[in-house]
């Protein structure tokens, strides 16, 4: 099986987010960047499928700045075979141009499966996977937390409100990974050494500008401090009174 995994370079989930001087993007100084956590599930799934099939190829594709080579190397260290960086210094807030760049790269690659994360934890669009599928005319299941492959297709399960949706699909397909799909492996030292020698092609992404303009980026409005209505169970009537008559939510 030939599998592509699209990965994004994102600020670590524990990074402190500070708005930059222009008020339109984050201040990247001192921010640690990582492989998007949901993409780790996608990489892991690709590796498992290749191992189970006994043969195949796992190609990592990323749209991002020069520094995203490091992100691709992380996936190569986990065990992927080759990488492609579609270089773009600025990736905008509209997910469609990114999806188009990825689809353009994947179109003639002969892939059986394209895996992505369900969302990037920076802009949280939850969009690039289904968009890539539409652009490539491939079947797609997003936010899969369970995947079973069979002859020429498979079955995926995705969590929805109050239940689990079971979806049957045929190959080639685009699947986006949710937490629970698997336990991503850590790159071993040997993997890290080998990754340095694996092929990584760099070319220009030629991103379209997209139809979304940033007006500003701001820290969230502070919640105004509330009050302690009392101590222990005896404070319950005062709380109910406040919820009913002050907040009007009961």
């Amino acid at each position, binding site marked *: 099986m030939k599998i592509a995994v699209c990965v994004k370079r994102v600020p670590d989930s524990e990074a402190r987010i500070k708005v930059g001087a222009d008020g339109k993007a984050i201040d990247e100084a001192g921010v640690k960047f990582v492989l998007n956590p949901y993409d780790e599930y996608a990489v892991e799934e690709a590796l498992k499928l290749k191992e189970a099939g006994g043969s195949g190829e796992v190609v990592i594709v990323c749209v991002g700045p020069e520094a995203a080579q490091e992100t691709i190397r992380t996936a190569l260290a986990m065990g992927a075979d080759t990488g492609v960086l579609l270089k773009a210094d600025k990736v905008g807030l509209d997910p469609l141009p990114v999806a188009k760049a990825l689809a353009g790269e994947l179109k003639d690659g002969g892939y059986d499966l394209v895996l992505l994360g369900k969302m990037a934890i*920076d802009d*949280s669009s939850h969009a690039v996977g289904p*968009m890539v599928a539409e652009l490539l005319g491939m079947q797609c299941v997003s936010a899969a937390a369970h995947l079973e492959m069979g002859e020429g297709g498979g079955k995926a399960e995705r969590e929805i*409100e109050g239940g689990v949706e*079971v979806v049957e699909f045929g190959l080639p397909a685009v699947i986006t990974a949710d937490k629970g799909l698997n336990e991503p492996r850590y790159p071993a030292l040997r993997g890290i050494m080998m990754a340095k020698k694996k092929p990584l092609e760099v070319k220009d992404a030629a991103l379209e500008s997209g*139809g*979304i303009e*940033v007006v500003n980026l701001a820290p969230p409005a502070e919640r105004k401090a509330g009050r302690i209505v009392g101590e222990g169970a005896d404070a*319950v009537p005062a709380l109910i009174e406040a919820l009913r008559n002050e*907040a009007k939510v009961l």
Partner: protein
Amino acid sequence: MAGVIAVLEQRDGTLKRVSYEALTAARALADALGGEAHALVIGPAGIDAGDVGTYGADKVFVAADDALTLYQADQYAQIAAAQVGSDDYAAAIVPATALGKDLAPRIAAKLDCPFASDVTSVRHDGGVVVTRPVYAGKADYTLKVTATPCVVSLRPNAVMPVEAKRDATDEQAAAAESDRTAAKTLEIKQPDRAAQDVAEASVVVAGGRGLRDAESFKLIEDLAEAVGGAVGASRAVVDAGWRSHSEQVGQTGKVVSPNLYFAIGISGAIQHLAGIRTAKTIVAVNKDPDAPIFKVADYGIVGDLFEVVPRLTQEIKQAKEG
């Protein structure tokens, strides 16, 4: 005159609350633009979209077929894109649910138009302007859309449904090609109708490690039942296996915007707070007066949850009966 279309969501033939939220947002944006608000309903044969006019739709397009009872992504996307593309709409508003998060980007890709995901507000200010929380709630983008139409998905509970009576007319929606090979949704497993989803509920009662064990979550369930809310959980208790991941609130769980959020025995770690920032009223019960949760709570009780919560449940029940 440019209008706005809301793509509604149903389950088992009944429109969900998020549908009225999307419609309310569509009505307000249409009013600002001086255009009409339309609605698109995709669902089983005989689906009743009767009260859609009550929430401000001037026109309702209906695609009703038993093959569309469950979310069939390919067909839903074909229908929705054809409908959104059929008129001069400024925007299509889709609820940012599990269904909408899959459907909305497909519509944008088919129509080659801009997309803004999981917004908490949509308005008109020389164009369509949205607010989008990003970095797990650590910052908010204000974005302006520069092309039409655009697709936005709206976070559940971000907009309160408001009635706005219109004489909605029903019309036939665009159709999908039925013979395409496509992925097929077979079923919804474990549909637990009693349990509401934390992301959609207007009241959430969440419990943390202060509960001490899985069995004690009965206290949380009882309070949730008394207030008609959903059960939520901190990551600590999900990792401990006391509750399922589907209930986790926070940066790596769900982001919630209920009217009322109870944090019971939850310390208020930054990653938990990221998920409740847009809750309207937060109540905290914690025995530690210095717990960070009290810094964001509107109302707090310092005390032992094992004493406070049963009393709270009992008095809320009594108040409701009385």
